[in-house]
């Protein structure tokens, strides 16, 4: 189980839909493990954040990434591929959180070494439940790599 570290867990959410951002914030607010949620709304900004480029120079490196697949500027598959190829980033778990149920997206994501693939339910309560489940598993059960 992950220790109740003094340092809050840093989560990067890559999501362009404001409604989904709001719901994810809502679900994580009540988490038992202290966490900071950072939001980037397209693939290019997500990679800049992870590489601490430009205005992101002072941001912490995330412990966990929640990644949508259909994103502006650079799609989630490309972002995933770049994360998993980059020595400094590849240990960070990436949970795909998407509306796509397409088998091709699921298999491709796992082949690109997404850590888990979760589909967004359309129903609001179900969506909150799914985000809470992600939070409970990754923040309370999993041991993240936090050197």
């Amino acid at each position, binding site marked *: *189980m992950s220790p109740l570290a003094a340092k809050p867990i840093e989560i990067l959410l890559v999501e362009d839909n404001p409604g989904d951002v709001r719901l994810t914030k809502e679900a994580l607010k009540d988490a038992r493990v202290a966490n900071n949620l950072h939001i980037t709304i397209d693939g290019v900004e997500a990679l800049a954040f992870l590489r601490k480029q430009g205005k992101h120079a002072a941001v912490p490196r995330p412990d966990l990434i929640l990644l949508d697949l259909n994103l502006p500027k650079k799609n989630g598959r490309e972002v995933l591929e770049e994360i998993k190829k980059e020595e400094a980033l590849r240990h960070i*778990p990436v949970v795909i959180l998407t509306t796509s149920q397409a088998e091709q997206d699921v298999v491709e994501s796992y082949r690109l*070494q997404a*850590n888990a*693939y979760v589909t967004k339910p359309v129903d609001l309560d179900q969506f909150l439940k799914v985000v809470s489940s992600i939070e409970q*598993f990754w923040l309370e*059960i999993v041991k993240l790599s936090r050197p």
Partner: protein
Amino acid sequence: MSRPPHTAPIDVLLVEDDGNDVELTLHALQGAKLRNVVHVARDGAEALEFLQSHVPDLILLDLNLPKLDGREVLERIKADERLRHIPVIVVTSSQAEEDVAKSYRLNANAYVTKPIDPAVFLKAVNAIGQFWLEIVKLP
């Protein structure tokens, strides 16, 4: 490659040499809502042998194993085009940051440490079952 929802049971490979941990894990996964079949391999060599003829939906892998170490098993699974899409959850007593970081670098999908208290361990395996069998979309 994947099943339509609620048809065939989910195939789980459990690679674990400790008899008690096997019992606890089987018990926890039997309680999962989705039907699943757990295959048990007692060492790393047996796991790889099983994987030669099977492609399970999910793998739970201990690190310290007889014959062939779990780290080696993980590396071989993730280097194998036929197997690398299968989520591998490392379940181990090792808390060493070196093992955690190395496992993620070898593309373990998640790293879970075994609590010493059996009741807490059962809770952890329940949580693994709930997340991976009910929330996650497996390939």
